[in-house]
């Protein structure tokens, strides 16, 4: 991990990996969405509204995964002072916030035909909404810390770690409290090959999740390259101004 503390080494890998992740992610995600939309069967109870699953579940996974990445990067920044950790955490915030918002909107679009309502204040929906607010707070805090100009601030990292408390709350909310929301679609049972979902639903869902995850990885790398390039350009301009 410390091998990538050198930005030049990280950039060599990121330049090669970014387009590959974006391209392979787009192909897999679009293929899985087409499968889910036109070839997967309708559900016995929910009918065709179940097709929203193939976009809603990957969005939820990435919303939670994005904050988990922020928490891990924040921990790495605080404990090991890894120079790229703060950049990685900031880079994951915007795509994470986007997919959390997409999860909430697609969930609402699914809730109307399936439950008869756009929204209920139950544990799963409310904790997911809290996650969106946490993302907004993190983006504002990191932006303010970077504009401060007094050097690296660890306040966003502490916020990223504290906010991680919400992730298990989201995951277990459907088990802890009564909810209209169904139990988790993907979990340890899926890894063990004992998923409660029929393979006709499970395969397109797994491929969509894999594709969107690769896309997310490419987006985070692209954001990291942007932040690094801006910092390097600023540093160069400051050096030139100082020597002029």
């Amino acid at each position, binding site marked *: 991990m410390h091998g990538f503390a050198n930005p030049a080494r990280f950039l060599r890998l990121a330049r090669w990996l970014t387009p590959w992740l974006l391209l392979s992610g787009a192909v897999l995600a679009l293929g899985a969405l087409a499968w889910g939309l036109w070839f997967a069967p309708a559900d016995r109870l929910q009918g065709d509204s179940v097709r929203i699953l193939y976009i809603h579940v990957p969005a939820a996974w990435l919303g939670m995964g994005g904050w988990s990445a922020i928490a891990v990067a924040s921990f790495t920044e605080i404990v090991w002072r890894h120079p790229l950790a703060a950049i990685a955490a900031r880079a994951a915030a*915007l795509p994470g916030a986007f997919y959390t918002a997409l999860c909430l909107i697609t969930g609402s679009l699914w809730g109307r035909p399936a439950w008869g309502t756009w929204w209920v204040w139950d544990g799963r929906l409310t904790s997911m909404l809290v996650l969106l607010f946490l993302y907004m707070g993190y983006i504002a805090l990191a932006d303010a810390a970077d504009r401060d100009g007094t050097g690296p601030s660890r306040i966003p990292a502490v916020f990223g770690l504290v906010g991680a408390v919400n992730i298990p709350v989201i995951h277990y909310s459907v088990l802890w409290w009564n909810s209209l929301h169904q139990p988790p679609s993907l979990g340890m049972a899926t890894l063990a090959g004992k998923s409660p979902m029929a393979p006709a639903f499970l395969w397109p869902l797994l491929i969509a999740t894999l594709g969107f995850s690769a896309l997310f990885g*490419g987006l985070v790398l692209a954001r990291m390259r*942007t932040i690094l390039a801006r910092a390097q350009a600023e540093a160069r301009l400051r050096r030139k101004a100082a020597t002029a």
Partner: protein
Amino acid sequence: MTETLDPWPFVAAAYALGVLGTALLTGWIWTQMRRAEARRESTRSR
């Protein structure tokens, strides 16, 4: 009285938001990255 809604407008809206939103986000992030890297190169040659 139970209400039965046609699910297809909801499915179409979810897919359109997901695909278009992801495409716009990817395009915007890619453009920002290329601009930032071009600016870094221009500061090197200045």
